[in-house]
């Protein structure tokens, strides 16, 4: 914990952004608990991705150019954090915030060579993954909603990735789209629900919106 940061000092930052007045915080503002949970998800997934990328790099070297394609199969894994965050916190923008924080951890702390433009991808992934939940007003968390979440998350970010990586005009365009959307549906959608269910069973999210709602319903 960063205790030294709280000590008295010289300047007061100009904007006390987002600070609530005395008394209970308005329901619109995020509870610090929810914010930290989303950060924690970002950190754990950032760390797991980092470990995955270490393993992945070796494999990609071995596979040569085929690695470029095989990478699409794992894309869904990058979408996982958004639906998990939405399902637990059940607040608007939870998915986007979770993706963005995971991206910040990845590039600013863990040094992903993709750089800050990872944030653009993160916003798109988060928005795509969150849209189905938002449409149900964060009330329905069945397999279908999770599947659509993974599918949209993958589809939305695809067009940005395609621009960034120059896939337009390649012969493989349709194949890439197909692989990524499929991966998003399975790894970024259905797997997210499996994971959330497992987390709920451990009891650690009892004090969050998902616990109050009595689990994944």
């Amino acid at each position, binding site marked *: 914990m960063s205790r030294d940061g709280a000590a008295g000092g010289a300047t007061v930052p100009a904007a006390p952004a987002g*600070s609530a007045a005395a008394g209970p915080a308005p329901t619109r503002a995020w509870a610090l608990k929810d*914010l930290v949970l989303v950060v924690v998800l970002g950190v*754990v997934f950032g760390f797991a991705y980092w470990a995955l990328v270490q393993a992945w790099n070796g494999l990609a070297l071995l596979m040569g150019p085929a690695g470029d394609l095989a990478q699409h199969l794992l894309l869904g894994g990058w979408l996982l954090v958004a639906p998990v965050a939405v399902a637990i916190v059940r607040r608007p923008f939870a998915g986007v915030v979770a993706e963005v924080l995971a991206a910040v951890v990845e590039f600013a*702390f863990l040094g992903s060579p993709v*750089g800050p433009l990872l944030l653009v991808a993160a916003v798109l992934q988060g928005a795509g993954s969150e849209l189905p939940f938002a449409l149900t007003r964060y009330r329905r968390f069945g397999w279908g909603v999770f599947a659509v979440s993974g599918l949209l998350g993958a589809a939305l970010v695809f067009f940005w990735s395609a621009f960034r990586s120059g896939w337009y005009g390649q012969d*493989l365009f349709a194949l890439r789209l197909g692989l990524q959307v499929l991966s998003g549906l399975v790894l970024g959608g259905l797997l997210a629900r499996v*994971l959330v269910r497992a987390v709920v069973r451990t009891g650690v999210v009892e*004090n969050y919106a998902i616990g109050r709602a009595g689990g994944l319903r």
Partner: protein
Amino acid sequence: MSASPLRQVVPSPLARRDPTVKLALLTLVSLVALLVLDPVTPAVLYGLALVGVAVATRAPARTLLLAHVPFVAFAAGVLVVNALSRSGTLLAAAGPLVVTREGLALGVALAARTLLVGVLALGFVLSTDGVALMTSLHQHARLGPRVTYAVLAGYRMLEEMPREWTLLQHAHAVRAPLRRDGRPALGPRHHLGVVFGLLVVSLRKGERMAQALESRGLGLAPRTTWRPVPLTRGDAVLVVAVLAPLAAVLATSAALGLLEGPGTLTR
């Protein structure tokens, strides 16, 4: 896995510059590079960036070389796939594989861009401490205190994560089935179990952290900053040192007729 994922920041000229300024420059150059799609311009920029990063971070050649491995591998993949999968003037053919001139040019352009952004991101990470970054963003980019401290808490957690990982790994190894030579069999299933354990432990820790932060009244009143980091003339020099060569290379490239934009993709 025992190695820390966080790089140690060593003192260097670039490490003394403000993190917000570095981040803004990195973002700007990445955005500009996104729009450049000829092979020569990004390659020249990469050369300049490599020299700049090497000088400004004083990183040993070995560090730079090793850090290059992941994105060089990625760039090579991009190069080959583009060279093989685009229609255009035939350069070479071997069986079903056809290399076109357009594909090769675009492949080189994208590979060079990957290298450029990769080496700049490397320079950023080598010279920027996570805590300094968040402090600077709080101060200069007006990032709210609650977000700042939540991310800082996450950063501390990340620092401890390799240790936590080892601990969980050992705990799992105790119960793992043994191989013939008597050592525990640690397969993918085992690793998934460790990752899940890490997630659950971290979630629980996060809840306690949030309570600790809240009990200290975080976010209720305007905060003061301990050791504020001022923007200095050095930061202005850094901005010029990055933007001037960038503008010069783009202008020269345009004057020579080499510069090309995203239109190349659909050609």
